[in-house]
């Protein structure tokens, strides 16, 4: 188990990659994009992007905007 900061909140998880994190968080059906420590992680690289304790993960989705 490691501690991450996901969307600004601390989360303890067993996920070792961004892909696992997304799966565990049940985003699969959703339409999302991801970034780790301020850098974009394309969908194709989620499975190979390892997570380290303290990593800041952003998981975002389409919303209204001006």
């Amino acid at each position, binding site marked *: 188990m490691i501690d991450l900061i996901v969307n*600004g909140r601390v989360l303890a998880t067993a996920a070792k990659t961004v892909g696992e994190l997304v799966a565990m968080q049940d985003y699969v059906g959703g339409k999302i*994009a991801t970034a780790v420590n301020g850098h974009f992680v394309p969908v194709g690289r989620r499975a190979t992007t390892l997570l380290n304790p303290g990593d800041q993960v952003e998981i*975002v989705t389409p919303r209204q*905007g001006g």
Partner: protein
Amino acid sequence: MNIRDQTLHESDPLMLYGTAMRSRLLLGTAGYPSPAILADAVTAADAGVVTVSLRRETAGGKTGARFLDLINGLGVKVLPNTAGCRTAREAITTAEMARELFGTPWIKLEVIANDDTLQPDVFGLVEAADVLTRDGFQVFPYTTDDLSVAERLQRAGCEIIMPWAAPIGTARGIVNRAGLESLRAYFPSVTLIVDAGIGAPSHAAAAMELGYDAVLLNTAVAKAADPAVMAAAFAAAVKAGRLGFEAGLMPPRDMAMPSTPVAGTPFFDLEPKS
């Protein structure tokens, strides 16, 4: 009215990075009372482009997917923004996530100096525009009316520049008319879109009369008592301003001038007798 059709629609469509748009009004999707009202407003506005953003999704959430379905159902082009980003880095990463999510190279680039004023941070803006353009994005930068910044944005590869009329959400209309005029004069061939600060249809018409290519707005429609009717109002205003520009406006005059000719006025040569 087929005069308008000719003038606006056939004769010169709005070009956005090579894509021809029939409508010169771009509409934001934020702050509407309901998704249904948003959809009505987009239809009434006859908008060809709507802006959207990215927000954090809560675990298991499906909100984003539902919103995306709504937007896709509107049959308009999508322009994602980087609203709320305070650094070039944040804006660049947000743009990359947006490109993957929405499948478009278009990005409305916003880098704000601070959260109170929402003033563009022109340094971060130019830096991000430069990086994103090299990376294949087609950047729509939200900026001030600063000519020296606009020059750098153009050098960074922006074919579109979006100066504000007034700070976001103030609804003040054009604050620095002379500034917008000199931008237009200085960049005759850049697509100039007035973004932010438009509060009334007359403001949008005034921007188009200056020769601006389009208007992007959100709050004035979303927060109107009747957003769909207000959207129709802005659609008409943008057309009115564009037609006025194309028809050739007369300049203001200092002296009063009669519209009815004076020659031949009855009683003209007689002394007035009160």
